């Protein structure tokens, strides 16, 4: 409707534009920040490289030129995959967090709450501990992808069980669902503990890599698989932004506004499980991004999902990139698990947000 905008009166047009402008500005700033951080991440590392070398290597990577020398190799085979991994996983986790919080209408709903992470953890630990005995066939069949695929399937399976428990006659009861989530998380945690108890030195060491999260392992095949599992759902999400907004008024109102709420909820939960499960499968457990990023953004720009979702994607990617840069430089040559860094950053940030909100509500 080209004529519609003209019908607006002057001052309101300005107001609308300023709100839209502010949101657009925020998105552009976040995108610019992400690009800068990507360049910084390519620049950061124990091997000293000049800006020119980094940019040259980036150009070589874009033009698919052959690898030329050590510095080119460092940027293209070590730093670039790791950077892309951080961007993909950070974006996926933050978007999944925004989606789960929207679907469950609860600011504390984390993808972890619906069992994705704990299910993935259980499956991964099971593969690590039982790879010589009970799950030998799986390792033989799946080869090097045995662990990531198992983690992904485990996450999805536990999510579906929790969703099933929380659903009666096609209606999802959020309270039941969250309680079922807590109970199932305890159960999967206990099973993981039993497996940990059975593990020997070497398996325990493998689990450390996995349970604290690390982006060190990202190679091109993993990145290719991840981009499918994360970028596709991300492209799919804007279609649900309006629905998520309507859901904030409750499922009944969303139904009145013409949305097929039950069906959409199932889709959204599956999409969140896919993004988190895929991320966890490749990089292990990285917490807090899904919780902190959407929360922080809601304070900044409000809960409108049409802006919140893209902003979460950008900020989530940036945050994980920063955490990973800290992880690989702080105690170099040792490589700190990025999940640990994330928790160290995320905990205080989240706490200060919470305190600010309490103060705001009182004042």
């Amino acid at each position, binding site marked *: 409707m080209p004529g519609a905008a003209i019908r607006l009166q002057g001052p309101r047009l300005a107001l609308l534009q300023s709100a839209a402008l502010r949101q657009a500005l925020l998105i552009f700033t976040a995108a610019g920040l992400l690009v800068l951080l990507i360049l910084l991440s390519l620049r950061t590392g124990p091997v000293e490289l000049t800006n020119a070398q980094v940019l040259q290597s980036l150009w070589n990577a874009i033009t698919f030129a052959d690898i030329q020398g050590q510095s080119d190799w460092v940027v293209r085979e070590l730093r670039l995959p790791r950077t892309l991994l951080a961007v993909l996983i950070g974006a996926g986790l933050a978007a999944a967090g925004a989606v789960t919080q929207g679907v469950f209408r609860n600011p504390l709903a984390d993808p972890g709450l619906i069992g994705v992470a704990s299910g993935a953890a259980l499956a991964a630990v099971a593969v690590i501990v039982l790879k010589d005995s009970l799950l030998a066939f799986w390792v033989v069949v799946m080869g090097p992808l045995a662990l990531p695929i198992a983690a992904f399937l485990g996450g999805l399976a536990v999510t579906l069980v929790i969703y099933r428990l929380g659903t009666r006659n096609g209606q999802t009861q959020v309270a039941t669902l969250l309680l079922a989530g807590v109970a199932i998380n305890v159960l999967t945690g206990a099973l993981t503990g039993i497996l940990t108890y059975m593990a020997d030195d070497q398996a325990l060491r493998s689990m450390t890599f996995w349970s604290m999260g690390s982006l060190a392992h990202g190679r091109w095949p993993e990145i290719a698989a991840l981009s499918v599992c994360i970028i596709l759902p991300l492209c799919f999400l804007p279609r649900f932004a309006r629905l998520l907004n309507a859901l904030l008024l409750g499922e009944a109102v969303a139904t009145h506004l013409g949305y097929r709420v039950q069906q959409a909820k199932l889709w959204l939960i599956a999409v969140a499980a896919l993004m988190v499960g895929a991320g966890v499968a490749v990089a292990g457990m990285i917490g807090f991004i899904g919780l902190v990023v959407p929360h922080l953004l809601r304070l900044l720009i409000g809960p*409108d999902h049409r802006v919140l979702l893209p902003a979460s994607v950008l900020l989530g990617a940036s945050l994980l990139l920063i955490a990973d840069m800290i992880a690989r430089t702080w105690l170099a040559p040792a490589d700190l698990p990025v999940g640990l860094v994330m928790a160290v950053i995320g905990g205080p940030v989240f706490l200060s947000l919470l305190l600010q909100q309490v103060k705001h509500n009182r004042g």
Partner: protein
Amino acid sequence: MLNVKHLSVNLGSSAGRSSKTLLNDINLHLGYGEKLAVLGANGAGKSTLLKCICGEFSNYQGDIILDHLSLKFWSGAERARQMAVMPQKVELAFPFRVDQVVALGRAPHGDELHSTALQRAAMQCADVWHLRRRNYSGLSGGEQQRVQLARVLAQIWRAEKNADGRELPRYLLLDECTSALDPAHQHSIMQRVGEFAGQGVAVLAVMHDISLAACWADRVLILRHGEVLACGAVELLADAQLLAEAYALDMPLAQRYAQQNMGWMQA
């Protein structure tokens, strides 16, 4: 128009088990521009009826027909462009501003950004224009109700046109929408809703305030134990015998209500 034919709802659907009948053989007709008040004691089935008509609850027997087409064949999006529903209470999970909440009413049309004039008119109609920058969660119960009214009014503020230029009918369903309002707002809001009906919108309001219904409605539907006790012109509310039956009132009290309603109808 809206036609409800032999509508029944049984809870605990599997036969044999103790199934509870919520609605039994309801018949109802609502024309365009008509104001129908649905009355009855608590648990009489008023809200269930509303939920069936607005598509929230689909596990019923019988048929509901909107504009010559059974509700089952309406897509949610089509229905939402013509029918707005205002629930009793809406709580927000995250802090939306008032104007954002009202803009959600335009979501079925997808023109939130291009219909600000319309949204403003709806907000002014519900007397919340001055609150537009406020956080919804920080408002009082009455103010929240008025914001929700503005949202549903915005949703069907103007009639959609179909391919051959015919204006599509509009329906407005209200579920005890004035419960938290002060008397002044109760009457002014119901008057606005009445004006809305004057544009040809079919309005169905579940009400618990008999006097308000008496002064506002054209017709009333009185439910008792899930069945239609009476359906007809608003003058039914002056029938003390009927009120006594509908609300299980003592006769003297019922007579006093009937007297009062008579006064409201003349006002």
